[in-house]
């Protein structure tokens, strides 16, 4: 499963998409929008056809490079609020060492080469926030 989408990421579906009876290790990475002074959300902008192409290539490369069985990558586009999931990478393999390694490598590559850009959406500090 390779996707770049506006809708919320269904993590259970991403996990299920890599399940195989012969692969006993599944690793899922989820990148969420971290809260930070004045940040309310991140806006993700994407060159979609090229992103899909490069995510597809990346998953194939990961399978070859680490000998893993399956990899799925789903990235949000548009506005993701603090606490929301912006990217999910699931990876299934026979042994856990290479499954972890493949998942971590893929996330580094996503940040390095996939044409997705983010902009911080700042929120004014409303007095309401103090009441929480």
């Amino acid at each position, binding site marked *: 499963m390779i996707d770049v989408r506006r809708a919320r990421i269904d993590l259970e579906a991403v996990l299920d998409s890599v399940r195989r009876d012969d692969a006993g290790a599944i690793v899922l990475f989820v*990148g*969420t*929008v*971290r809260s*930070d002074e004045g*940040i309310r959300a*991140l806006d*993700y*902008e994407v*060159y979609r*056809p*090229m992103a899909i*192409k490069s995510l597809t290539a990346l998953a194939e490369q990961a399978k070859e490079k680490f000998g893993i069985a399956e990899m799925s990558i789903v*990235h949000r586009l548009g506005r993701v609020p603090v606490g929301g999931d*912006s*990217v999910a990478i699931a990876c299934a393999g026979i042994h856990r060492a290479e499954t972890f390694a493949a998942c971590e490598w893929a*996330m580094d590559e*996503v*940040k*390095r*080469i*996939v*044409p*997705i*850009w*983010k*902009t*911080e959406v700042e929120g004014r500090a409303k007095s309401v926030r103090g009441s929480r």
Partner: protein
Amino acid sequence: MQIRLRLFATYREIVGSRGLTWSARDGITLRELVDGIVAKYPRLADHRGSMLLAVNEDIVSAERVLTDGDEVALLPPVSGGAR
């Protein structure tokens, strides 16, 4: 000939558009096209060093000779994932 131009993030903000059509002479290279774009939008000049160039969704070198109808994308350094 007509080149479709696509712009993202900072470049989109500088140019004020996600995409536009650019008229160019036949046989122009990607580098010459970008020269022309930067001449029209001088604030892009600072970004030239880190700009990636794609033609029809593939990263290519600046020496690529363009063809009528090509889609050229100017890509800022990427920053996918969470912050």
